[in-house]
């Protein structure tokens, strides 16, 4: 099923990537082409097949629920593009 421009614009919104009108057309064509190629998977009979959710057969390890790290605010903030007195700063969200 080919994608239309409105669908691609919607996906771009979900992915938080601004796409200009000029690029939308080309991207719609490219993504449709890839999807069409992917759709050959419909030939495969997967009736009763369990989905593979892990690359290795293993039980996820657990650890005690306690603090193992911390007290490193300066390291956490070392790469921040815009900081404000030891916090991450973002444009105003609440009026």
């Amino acid at each position, binding site marked *: 099923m080919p994608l239309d421009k409105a669908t691609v614009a919607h*996906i771009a919104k979900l992915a938080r990537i601004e796409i200009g009108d000029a690029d939308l057309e080309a991207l719609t064509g490219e993504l449709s082409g890839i999807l069409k190629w992917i759709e050959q998977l419909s030939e495969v009979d997967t009736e009763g097949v369990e989905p593979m959710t892990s690359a290795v057969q293993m039980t996820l390890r657990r650890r005690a629920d306690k603090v193992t790290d911390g007290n490193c605010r300066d390291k956490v903030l070392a790469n921040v593009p815009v900081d404000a007195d030891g916090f991450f700063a973002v444009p105003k969200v609440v009026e």
Partner: protein
Amino acid sequence: MSDLTGLSVSGAREGLAKGDFTSLELTEAHIAAIDAADGLNAFVSKTPDLARERAALSDKRRASGEAGLMEGIPIGVKDLFCTEGVLTTAGSHILDGFEPPYDSTVTANLWREGAVMLGKTNMDEFAMGSSNETSYYGPVLNPWRRPGDNRSLVPGGSSGGSAAAVAARIVPAAIGTDTGGSIRQPAAFTGTVGLKPTYGRCSRWGIVAFASSLDQAGPMARSVRDCAILLRAMAGFDAKDSTSVDTPVPDYEAALTGEVTGLKIGIPAEYKVDGMPGEVERLWQQGVDWLRGAGAEIVDISLPHTRYALPTYYIVAPAEASSNLARYDGVRYGLRVPGERLDDMYEKTRAAGFGAEVKRRVLMGTYVLSAGYYDAYYLKAQKVRTLIKRDFIEAFEKVDAILTPTTPTPAFAVGERVDDPIAMYLNDILTVPANMAGLPGISVPAGLSDDGLPLGLQVLGKAFDEETVLRVGHVLEGAAAFDARPDPWWRAD
């Protein structure tokens, strides 16, 4: 150009142990070679001062009687591994200026074993690419060209900078990562050896994530032995990676017995893909003959879902990438483009920070995970992935290892496939299945194409049986006696 730059890892290890030269001398020789090879664009960041400092420390350790597995040996590090205090870009504009306050587990293991970092190698952006043309820092050029033809060829990708640096002998070895073939395919394109270990063998902690159920770090070098040495230093259990497997790391060099007598080697019919050039098929047959001649038993096998591995990959990998790359939002690190509102800032930052291929994949991943399409695409792909893995499990009941070509073609020209995503994706058709199943694989240079370019053979093994993969790879390496070298057109000295 001193002859120290031609040394293998094992040769350097021997020379350092005997006191023929110091780590500082070995490191200086490679720093000079890297500076003389800027035309390859193999590095995003060079770290000569850090290299000298660490080499001097290594020489001191050695003098005091301590020597790790990689003591004093300089290497290149793919710019996907976080390195403390050293710019780490993943080949992307969106990580501008990012200097991690920590090292990845794999690099920390290597430093613990005495390795010295020469710099961070160039790569496809976020490891998404098969030609190194998607890097924000420009394409890496393959040291190899067709004889009598000056056109630049791609080194493969995504670990193309590491592969090119190893092939050009400006580093003795390097590390890379392999999500769909990103170590093995560039190794094949550059006449070098590249090993993707079993998923869970090397920790993923501190490696910029692309597709978390597929990503795996591995060594790239000029011999199978060198890969064995590096893997032992890189691998090991890490509590910080929930998928790291707690199993002992063997001495991989001990597996290089030169013997394959009695081993059963599977030849999967389905790897003979449509349009495979005669030269690739002939080399594959040559590999079969070499292994049979060395005493292995050749067994025809079938991996019926092979042709579905690539389309499955192009659902699973973008889905995981769209989730992993959600963290690049201009708030905590890297690029930030100002916006009126928060969403506006996110959208502008990600529009400016991601390149075309990354955007394509994030959008594809977002689509296949979105409401109403999840079952049709993502769940379907996970089920096909089960079938792909089952094919391998059944095959490995009959054989010890599998032999295939690494790539369907030799290296192609820069720009040749960049406008056709699917043609580019087809590069990985023979390498992707091992990632889908989490299995180890190696690419060994085995011969030259009709137009004089390297071609690789791939050996796949059972989970956590890198030893058999290395053993078979070593025998192929010995039989192929690949000693062709690119003409050093890039050298500026």
